[in-house]
């Protein structure tokens, strides 16, 4: 009997507060205001790959499948099951019945075909960076709820792309307003539907009534909890965080380290940290432009920068939360396929100097090394302050003169493409290690590709091709480990820090979760404390 009393007491002491809390559990209603650091270009997943646009339209459009952040497995969403052919070239999806677009038209195999074809229609000029451009062949409608996607050659990241970038738009919606206007009048099948877009100010969404096809990973079914979501566009970081403090917005992304430090411990706010898989904040090194065509110069840079110090000075406050750590190889430690063996360059300025000496770069009178009449000048472009200045200071001490230029992203990319800079950053949050082929495969040199190192290395191409087609996970992991070791040995890129999602939310916001990339919120589950 006395045992029962103890149990009861325990329940009372431990359980009652829990009960009280859960009584105030998920509440329906309210408007969440979420700030963005840039304006969407168009709310059209077939044609846009811009992050602010994706954050918004991922709420409006559902994907066929979704990657579970917990175990990185692929889970159903609009497709209930799928198979991949033995040769890796045909993906068959069985679609969920009863799914409706927000305009009342049904979602079916023909809609999937419409979306895939539209994404790969060159006349429309897609900007979807992660889509199967170059691999996609055709889509075949097998029956109303079965669809078969054919690739020209095997491409292992296809399911990953399907979980992120292939989002289903309503064909009737596109037909109604036209391809170019659809991005201003989006119609999807997602938990939220479009209300209005005031350019450069806000995008307003409201709950889709009757939504009943959430992915099983949410553990819940039915319409979203929030009445409305307002995305406020506030590019200025100090203004953005000011809006959070003033209570005008409840979630603010891309917080600066010093604001983060100041507000993370404020009882009114909660930090949100998502560690991003994929490529860390790496710099492409142009191997065709002097002086970075010299392996010794590239390796000297790898040895010559103190990544620990750089990460601490630039991003110290984030590191308490495990974010923005020093990065020594091409994939961040939380990525499937990350290989610790490839972390071959520890900070060693003596070794860096020795490498340069041996390669004939002798210290000149101004402290900068030279070879003949050539000064050791490396042009380094970026779109953000911080890392560039620190790298500049570090490399100056080993005799490399770094010319830094801080421009907008388009100019940075253009300069690297035209060979006016030696180095420029390539952040790439992706869940699949195939992201590396976008940076270093020879087919991505020139004409809009992102091989900004201009590496054309058959050995590396072979590894990437094998990685893209290998279906056995263990063997595939092995291939990427080899590729990382090989590319780091050649110092094709300069990884510096990881680049993670660091945001702040009001304590009133509950159950705000992020997808497997760490950057895209799922607002389906999110609710507000009254």
């Amino acid at each position, binding site marked *: 009997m006395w045992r029962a009393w103890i149990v009861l007491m325990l329940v009372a002491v431990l359980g009652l507060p829990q009960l009280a809390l859960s009584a105030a559990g998920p509440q329906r209603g309210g408007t969440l205001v979420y700030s963005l650091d840039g304006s969407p270009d168009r709310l059209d997943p077939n044609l846009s790959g811009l992050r602010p646009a994706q954050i918004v339209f991922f709420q409006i459009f559902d994907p066929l499948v979704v990657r579970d952040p917990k175990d990185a497995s692929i889970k159903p969403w609009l497709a209930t099951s799928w198979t991949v052919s033995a040769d890796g070239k045909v993906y068959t999806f069985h679609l969920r019945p009863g799914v409706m677009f927000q305009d009342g038209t049904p979602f079916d195999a023909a809609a999937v075909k419409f979306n895939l074809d539209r994404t790969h229609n060159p006349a429309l000029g897609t900007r979807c960076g992660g889509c199967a451009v170059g691999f996609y062949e055709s889509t075949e409608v097998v029956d109303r709820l079965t669809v078969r996607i054919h690739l020209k050659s095997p491409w292992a990241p296809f399911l990953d792309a399907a979980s992120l970038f292939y989002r289903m738009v309503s064909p009737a919606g596109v037909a109604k307003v036209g391809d170019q206007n659809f991005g201003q009048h989006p119609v999807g099948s997602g938990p939220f539907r479009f209300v209005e877009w005031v350019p450069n100010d806000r995008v307003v969404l409201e709950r889709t009534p009757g939504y009943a096809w959430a992915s099983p990973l949410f553990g819940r079914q039915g319409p979203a909890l929030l009445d409305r979501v307002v995305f406020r566009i506030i590019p*200025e*970081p*100090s203004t953005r*965080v*000011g809006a959070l403090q003033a209570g005008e917005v409840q979630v603010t992304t891309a917080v*600066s380290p*010093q*604001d983060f*430090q*100041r507000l993370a411990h404020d009882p009114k706010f909660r930090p949100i940290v998502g560690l991003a898989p994929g490529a860390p904040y790496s710099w492409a090194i142009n191997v065709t432009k002097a002086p970075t065509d010299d392996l010794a110069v590239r390796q000297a840079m790898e040895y010559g920068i103190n990544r620990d*110090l750089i990460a*601490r*000075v630039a991003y110290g406050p984030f590191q308490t939360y495990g974010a923005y750590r020093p990065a020594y190889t091409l994939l961040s430690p939380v990525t499937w396929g990350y290989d610790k063996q490839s972390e071959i360059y520890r900070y060693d300025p003596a070794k860096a100097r020795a490498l340069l000496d041996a390669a004939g770069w002798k210290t000149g009178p101004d402290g900068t090394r030279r070879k003949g009449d050539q000064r050791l000048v490396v042009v380094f472009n970026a779109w953000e*302050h*911080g890392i*560039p*200045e*620190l790298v*500049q*200071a570090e490399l100056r001490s080993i005799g490399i003169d770094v*010319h*830094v*230029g*801080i*421009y*907008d992203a388009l*100019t940075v990319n253009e300069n690297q493409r035209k060979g006016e800079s030696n180095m420029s950053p390539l952040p790439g949050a992706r869940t699949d290690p195939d992201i590396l082929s976008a940076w270093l495969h020879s087919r991505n040199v020139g004409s809009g590709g992102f091989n900004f190192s201009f590496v054309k290395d058959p050995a590396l191409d072979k590894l990437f091709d094998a990685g893209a087609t290998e279906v056995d996970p263990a063997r595939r992991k092995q291939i990427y480990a080899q590729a990382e070791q090989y590319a780091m040995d050649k110092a094709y890129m300069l990884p510096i820090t990881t680049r993670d999602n660091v945001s702040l939310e009001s304590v009133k916001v509950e159950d705000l979760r992020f997808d497997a990339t760490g950057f895209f919120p799922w607002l389906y589950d999110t609710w507000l404390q009254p």
Partner: protein
Amino acid sequence: MTAAVRDGSMPETPGRAPWRTMFRHARRRAAVPSAAAFAFLAFVALVALAPRVAARYDPVEMNPAVVLTGPTAVHPFGTDEFGRDILSRVAYGARTSLGYAVLATAISVSLGTVVGVTSGFYAGTFDAVVMRAIDVLMAFPGILLALIVVTLLGPGLTNAMIAIGVGQTPAFSRVVRGATLSIKGNQYIEAAHSMGASGARVMRRHILPNVQHVVFVLATLGYGTAILIGASLSFLGLGAQPPVPEWGSMLETARGYLQTNWWVGVLPGVVLGATLLSINIVGDQVRDMLDPSLRID
């Protein structure tokens, strides 16, 4: 924000009182502020010429041990996000900001003088064409023209200053043209002409010396505007590049620290504001002394 010169023709140059009287008059009117402004500008100019007067550190040297420390005896203006001494950066930044603004002003003044004098002197069709072109350029207010030029040339401090110089040229040309027109009517110029002097010679010997004071006033007033627009372009990310210390870009990066580390933005901002204030006060003074009817607001 911008230099907009009054549309329409120049008011007639007034009969000028003897220099000395005007100077005394002007001095009496605003003795204290202008003395302070002169003194401050002289000091800033000295620092720009010899930054070591105020700077105790290398302006680009980083020191991770003292990142973002407030003002102390060692670092009177505190340190920035890289542990650099802000006072030293402000001192070297004076050299950059003031020096490059000289470039911009030199461009606008020389182009403006050449265009204004020749257009006013030759009159007729040439003048009409030039003035219409200037009218078109002046339809793009101030910073917009500079922004367009930066788009064409690409970002960077030198390009930004060229952009500002070009941006101010139409307004300057118009004022100089007005001054030229009012002088051209004088009898001695007609006399020189009739004695067979070439156009170039008349312009050089007779017109230029007489529009000199206008050009000088324009240069003084335009100089402050050049610094201000230069800082604005840097603020928009189109100007100076790291690690070059420049006031506008210092303020640009300091934006993020205003709530946590006020000194990073406030102290350089105060120096920039005080410099612009002093240039405006001194510029007004110079204008009042030389040609009170000129107005560039």
